[in-house]
């Protein structure tokens, strides 16, 4: 049986990749994908820990996360779409109206 630490390490690596992607990539769509990656890293950790302690709670929460992620994707993509229509760009550096 695969030790729990492997799952946790993979989850951590995936999460770190996601964080890095959100912070460094300028394309909003890629940032969005990176957020999905972070969510799924958390999902992996939840499932693995749930199995380890013999509880169904982990899997239940994962389903909730997936549902929310789906809704988030729908809303997020809609926002990105209307942003592109208005500004002709999906570059995060150019989307900085919220400043002084």
């Amino acid at each position, binding site marked *: 049986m695969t030790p729990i630490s492997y799952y946790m390490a993979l989850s951590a690596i995936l999460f770190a990749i996601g964080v890095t992607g959100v912070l460094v990539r300028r394309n909003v769509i890629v940032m969005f994908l990176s957020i999905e990656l972070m969510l799924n890293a958390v999902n992996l950790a939840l499932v693995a820990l749930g199995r380890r302690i013999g509880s169904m709670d982990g899997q239940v929460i994962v389903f909730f996360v997936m549902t929310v992620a789906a809704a988030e994707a729908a809303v997020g993509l809609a926002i990105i779409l209307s942003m592109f229509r208005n500004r002709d760009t999906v570059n995060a550096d150019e989307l900085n109206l919220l400043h*002084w």
Partner: protein
Amino acid sequence: MTQNFPALGLILLFPAIGVLFNLFYGRRAGREAVNFVGPGVIFVAFAVTLTGFITLLRLPPGAALQCDLWSWIVAGSFHVELGLRLDALSAVMTLVVTGVGALIHLYSAGYMADDDDYARYFTYLNLFALSMLVLVLADNLLQMFIGWEGVGLCSYLLIAFWYDNPQYAYNGRKAFIVNRVGDLGFLIGIFTIVAALAQHGVWTLNFAAMQHHAALLQPVALTAALLLFFGATGKSAQIPLYVWLPDAMVGPTPVSALIHAATMVTAGVYMIARLNFLYLLAPPAMEVVATVGAVTAFFAATIAIVQSDIKRVLAYSTISQIGYMMLGVGVGAFAAGTFHLMTHAFFKGLLFLCSGSVIHALHGEQDMNKMGALRSKLPITYATMLIGTLAISAVPPFSGYFSKDLILEGAFATGHVWLWLTGVVTAGITSFYMFRLIFMTFHGPSRLDRDKAHHVHESPPVMAIPLIVLAALSIIGGWVGLPHWLLWGDAFKRFLAPIVARPPHGPFGEPIVMLDVERFSTSMGLSGIALAAGLIGIFLAWMLYIQRPELPDRIAERLRGVWELLWRKYYIDELYDHLISRPLFWASTNLLNQGIDHNVIDGFVDGTGATVEGSGEVTRKIETGNVQHYAFVYLIGVVAVAGYYVYLVLR
């Protein structure tokens, strides 16, 4: 012994009704109604006072009528119960305030006949009468202070009655501010007394209770007495705070008669007579009172010699006469001071009303250099004013003779020979300047302006009647205080005796050197000297202003410096201006306004704004608008919080 007498409340109620009526309905009700209600309420108050007085006379000596009103301040063990008390002393004052007050109110109806602001005028005048009655009827010190402030306010309102003249408004403010200076002393005096009594658990300001606990006041008696006297110098126009009174003469003349001669300015004398138990505990304070009084009497009288404004002469004369009263109460002759207060109210009220009648007849002319030969044109005014002048000059049997004599006798009897001498000399000066006024106004050649000369007319009956009544009082008013060996004797002193006893010991504690003034020959001798001084004054005035009218100018020319000094009123106004007003203005402008207000306070407020703005200027750079920067900061936060928990777990 104190008898309950609820009707005393009516004495205050009626003037209060007058105030409210004139304030809210005076305009709508019209001149007739105001002229009826304004004086009417005071006459009713006088009638009530008279019934109270008669009731009081039927009671044994030393009795008082009491009317409890309500609890004003209840704070822990400190109670101030408002109440009215009519004893011998306040009865005299109340009779003067309502009696003379009613006559002057009546006279005002005629004097203000051409003024459109009659409703406002009678509102103020009724309010004054109300405040003054609160002052004299008060049975405790704090209530007296309410009246004390009230009359000050009314004085201000009435001096500046014709407020569209900036000079008049200025004079009103001057009177108010100078009075405030004195009032501060009065207030601190009250605090001193409260503190001294409270130390021993006596929480009261009631006069009777204070007198009962007088021994507790011994440690602060000197301080309190001097502070209260400082208040009195403001209200009663004594050195050093007399400067407002001559300038107060810009108010309507009946106001000068009522407030600035007959009643309000004597409040200080009344206060000292009322608190005689306190002053007797502090002989040095009494010395101060007597000396200030005598010096003021002399000082003001000399200024009056050269003034040419008829009302100003009377104003300085008032200051001088109040000086006499202060001399009286200062040497412990409280009854004599109060007696002079009463007779002075009669004859000085009369003199002011007469001067008002002259001014009214001449359409506002107040300069005596532009009068003369009015005797035949204003016969009633002339006759009554002559009576008033004889009274103030202390010619027997006019009222001033008896009261002034009692004061001088009191000063002499207690060994104040110098003060007595000052008083005698002042008596001579008094009759000189008063007869100078009479001669310049009514005798000699006419110096009237051509266009005014043929409009001169005697005053209407509504003004003449108060003159005649007051003239009668000026003659017979003094007969209640005859020398003790004559007819009913000194009834006035006997009436007041239970309240104002003679001092038990002299100044600075040593036993008093009582000269036997009760002896007929001593009494007559003293009286004769004062009378001689007065007659010499009259004779000199007659010499200079009737026989040799060219002499005064020649003397003034010869004694240029002295004349200038008197004409400029010893440069006291200029002195105060340079020593007090200007430094204050300078300090207010440069230190307080420029320094503290503009630099410190504005600096603080502006600085707060500038700090916020500046720090915003710096910190707003953080807000880049770039979502990844926010995400990075967020990450740092998350790592920090997570790290903290990891630290807690691993520790």
